[in-house]
């Protein structure tokens, strides 16, 4: 299954959100929401539906991209 770029962008934003420090959290949350809104519009679904649908794909993406579990900037 091909992963659309907008979904990868959501995962990337979520990854940054999860592992950023407290001071960055509000901005990262904003970035995540904006990536989510873009993809929801693209596929014509609600943001809540999109979040629920791609939740499991986040782990797959992390493995495929070989993302570290605890990046250096861990809070």
């Amino acid at each position, binding site marked *: 299954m091909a992963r*659309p770029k907008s979904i990868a962008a959501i995962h990337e934003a979520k990854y940054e959100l999860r592992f950023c420090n407290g001071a960055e959290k509000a901005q990262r949350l904003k970035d995540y929401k904006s990536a989510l809104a873009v993809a929801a519009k693209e596929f*014509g679904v609600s943001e*809540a539906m999109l979040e*629920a649908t791609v939740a499991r794909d986040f*782990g797959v993406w992390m493995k495929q991209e070989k993302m570290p*579990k605890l990046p250096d900037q861990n809070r």
Partner: protein
Amino acid sequence: MKESVREDIRTTAEHWEWVRGLIRDIEREEKRDEFLKLLFQWDLAVREFRKVELTAMVLGQPNEKDFHFHSICLHSLLALGHSLILMAEAFEPKEFAHCQVEHGHIAAYVEELEQSFREWHHGFTDHEIAETKAKIFGGPS
């Protein structure tokens, strides 16, 4: 009353007021420290929760028990988080400046937890999810 006696009474009243102010400051600092202690403990719990979530839910194959405990932990962390937001309102931003805590940070942490809840404990049916998955990734719905 002699002038010197009046002066003494005024001075004594000012001293009492100064001591009362000092006590109020100490009490407020105590409350702030208690709040910060709770906040940091909550933050630690959130971090530990995220570690387990990553292993069990995100990178693993979560079973019914995982979903159950994930939901319970999220509920508890959210309840505490919301109460911390309310408690934080009693303090001025400058009172947290020494430990780089801002009111907005707590709200963002709570919102992030809410986001996790929407992801894993939504009310959508399997059919609805499968349909959306097909729309996004292609393949049969």
